């Protein structure tokens, strides 16, 4: 490094020229001790957590440990809440497809709870964020589903009743081996008819829904519908009476 001796001496002389004479503060000790007393009394008044915080602030290792623990806690909470949000979104979409498909709804009822009764707006809320629906699309879909809701609910109720009746036949067969085959046949015929009506209604609703959606949204909707349809918690409610039913 080039630091010429002449230059350095010049600077050092000028530095040596700067003398300061600041008088000492006669009240320094008193002021410092008063402030320390104040701090101590504040800490004493903070209680248990205050003392812990104070101890942490005075010691580096506990402070570092506490920082790490806090960071881990935040991460765990984030993961937990993100996981819950994802789970909730999945549940909402599954509930939706149950609602528009009474056959699957009845079938799934024994396997898992489908949640409380919801309004159409609540039922479709997940679609708004999932498909990034516009306000107009959402309103149209709500109106469309409102139109079909009652009929789908009636079909679901009827199918549930048929399912219960079928269970009664099954219980009777297991207990006394005496079955009214004609009544059973009628029941299964009724069930098939209800299923056909359900499938037709669901298909109609899906087609109308797809008309509201954009191509990207359609693709996503169909893919979700497919995964909901193939969900393992949707067993057959009653045995088939004929192929393709």
């Amino acid at each position, binding site marked *: *490094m080039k*630091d010429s001796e*002449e*230059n*350095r001496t*010049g*600077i*050092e*002389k*000028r*530095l*040596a*020229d*700067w*003398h*300061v*004479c*600041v*008088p*000492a*503060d006669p009240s*320094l*000790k008193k*002021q*410092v*001790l008063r*402030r*320390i007393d104040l*701090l101590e009394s504040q800490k004493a008044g903070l209680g248990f957590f205050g003392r812990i915080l104070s101890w942490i602030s*005075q*010691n*580096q290792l506990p402070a570092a440990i506490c920082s790490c623990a806090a960071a881990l806690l935040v991460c765990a909470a984030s993961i937990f809440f993100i996981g819950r949000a994802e789970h909730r979104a999945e549940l909402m979409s599954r509930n939706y497809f149950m609602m528009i498909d009474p056959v699957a709804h009845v079938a799934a009822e024994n396997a898992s709870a489908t949640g409380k009764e919801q309004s159409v707006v609540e039922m479709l809320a997940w679609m708004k964020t999932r498909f990034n629906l516009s306000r107009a699309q959402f309103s149209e879909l709500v109106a469309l589903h409102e139109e079909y809701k009652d009929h789908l609910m009636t079909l679901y109720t009827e199918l549930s009743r048929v399912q219960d009746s079928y269970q009664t036949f099954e219980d009777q067969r297991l207990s006394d081996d005496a079955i009214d085959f004609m009544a059973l046949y009628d029941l299964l015929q009724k069930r098939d008819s209800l299923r056909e009506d359900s499938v037709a209604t669901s298909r109609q609703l899906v087609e109308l829904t797809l008309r509201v959606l954009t191509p990207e949204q359609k693709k996503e909707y169909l893919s979700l519908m497919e995964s909901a349809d193939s969900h393992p918690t949707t067993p057959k409610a009653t045995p088939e009476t004929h192929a393709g039913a």
Partner: protein
Amino acid sequence: MQEHETDSDALLMMRVADGDRNALCSLMDKWESPLLGFIYRYVQNREAAAELTQETFVRLYEARARFRGDMRFSPWIFRIAANLCRNYHRWRKRHPEDMAWDEACEATNAPQQGTMREEDNPAAALARRESISELKDAIAAMPHDLATTLLLYYYQELSYREIAEVIGCSERGVETRLYRARAWLSKELAQPVESRSGCGILAAGGML
């Protein structure tokens, strides 16, 4: 700093860590003047220097649990003071409206600078005041690390090792900072003292 002095200060600090207020008073007796000198040169305001000195001792007490027996006291206390000075400097930059008031107060309360008998040579006294004023401005404009290194080395006579502990760098780093600080001053002080003719500045410096 003398080694035995450092040891005794470290012992006093250990007593402070055990809650001994008398030990703290002993440290205040011994370190008030060096700290005040350092802080005043850094912040160049008497009121602020007094307040920051007081704050340094309060912070010292608050951080007492972190002081270990194998540490040296002077870097420890100057580190606290230097950090406070830097915070004050930042605060002043963010609050320029308060600077005018501070400067006005400082002009009326300015401590006596130098010990020469100025009445003997008014021209020399004027040149000397100007020289010191330029020096103060140059130091005030210096980056924190350079100013701290310069002030601790030339006015507090701390060793490279002690300054390295204050700044948080190597001894070689201190050497570099000192070089850069002197280069900064050379550049900022447009007219070196030696080049001034007829003002008797060199003579005045020699008298000190």
